[in-house]
């Protein structure tokens, strides 16, 4: 019956509009909702990790053997670089340089992802109580992950750098050429605004430039894998991120000083 249908549709839409209005005036409504989902999401993710361990057993075994070989190689490189570090420290002392401060970090587990395919958001299990604030950078041991965009009491949302709306001020480590990295919702990133004839090569390392103030300077982003020309001679580079942004489980949040 159309009359009955109308009487149900209009109240539903009114309720939905009220929710929308409430959210506009109460900015923390979503953060409070996510905080209440904190424990179920953590439990689900723990179950999820166990299932993943069973399903990916062989993959993990092969990965483990490869990583053991890499560890022994890295250990050797560490010994060599320790020598360089000590020499550097002595020289800095001699020249009376101010030491770069190491930023404070806190580890967090990823407990959920954005349900949509048109954005790249992760939910972590740390929030205001652990000192996290909006726009804190999020990294892993291998490189940059993104920044915090919403903070609740116990959880936070992180905008990953492969999201379309993400922008990271970056530079090529070798040539110090600056550019802006944006996401493509896939594994690769794109570095825009490279001038014609920019000194960029395949396998160049890309790091954060620290210009925007959002990300500390010097965090590894990835490596250049392709270079192309855009309109009017401007170039762009395709970057392979150093971190696997599609399989994040644990991250480190850079806390404000």
């Amino acid at each position: 019956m159309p009359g009955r249908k109308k009487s149900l549709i209009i109240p539903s839409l009114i309720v939905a509009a009220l929710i929308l209005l409430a959210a506009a005036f109460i900015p923390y409504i979503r953060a409070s909702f996510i905080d209440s989902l904190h424990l179920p999401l953590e439990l689900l993710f723990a179950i999820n990790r166990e299932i993943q361990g069973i399903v990916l057993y062989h993959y993990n075994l092969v990965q483990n053997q490869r990583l053991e070989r890499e560890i022994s190689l890295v250990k050797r490189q560490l010994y060599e670089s320790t020598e360089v570090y000590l020499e550097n420290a002595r020289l800095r002392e001699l020249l009376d340089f101010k030491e770069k401060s190491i930023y404070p970090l806190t580890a967090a587990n990823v407990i959920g992802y954005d349900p949509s395919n048109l954005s790249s958001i992760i939910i972590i299990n740390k929030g205001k109580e652990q000192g996290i604030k909006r726009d804190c950078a999020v990294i892993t041991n291998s490189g940059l992950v993104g920044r915090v965009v919403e903070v609740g009491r116990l959880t936070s949302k992180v905008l990953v750098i492969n999201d379309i709306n993400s922008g990271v001020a970056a530079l090529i480590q070798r040539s110090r050429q600056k550019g802006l990295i944006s996401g493509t919702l896939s594994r690769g990133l794109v570095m825009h605004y490279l001038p014609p004839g920019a000194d960029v090569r395949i396998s160049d390392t890309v790091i954060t430039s620290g210009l925007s103030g959002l990300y500390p300077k010097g965090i590894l982003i990835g490596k250049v894998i392709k270079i192309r020309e855009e309109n009017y001679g401007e170039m762009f580079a395709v970057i392979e991120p150093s971190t696997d942004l599609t399989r994040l489980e644990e991250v480190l949040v850079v806390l404000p000083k």
Partner: protein
Amino acid sequence: MMIVRYYFRKYRIQIYGFLILLFATSLQCTLLNYFRIINIKPDIMLATLVMFSFFYSLRCSLIFSLLIGIFRDVLGFLPFGFNTIICVLWVILAREIFQRLSIEDKLIRCITLFIIIVLNNLTLNCFMFIINKPIPTGILLKVIFLESLFTLPLSLMIYKIFIFLLNPVKSPSINRL
């Protein structure tokens, strides 16, 4: 205990629907991310939403659509309320399509779901364009094509789950179209 059993029997269908909703939401946010292909995962929340519109009365399916929309808003990053409103609209649209077209069941459900997925992504793109964060056309087309390709086979499985749990022949309270 008797009271609990009484209310469980009385609202069994709605309870099952709520559990399916929770299961779909938890899968969408956790496990499905490991089964991405070309970084696209199926949207089983949307598929579940469309199934609600086929198996439940208008009132129930609107309530469930509100819940799904709220969950999507809470877990996403768009302005709160966007998904809440459009999920309600998709339920109404799905019911209208299913009522007006009278050919084979499964085909209609698949076509309806495909239309909803396309419209959902296009609406999202329009909204992102309005708030000055447009999605590049190539990425949008890739998402639309692959999301519908991955979601449609899963929707048949979700349909079987609905049939198994809800058993509409024996449950006259379900308004089956």
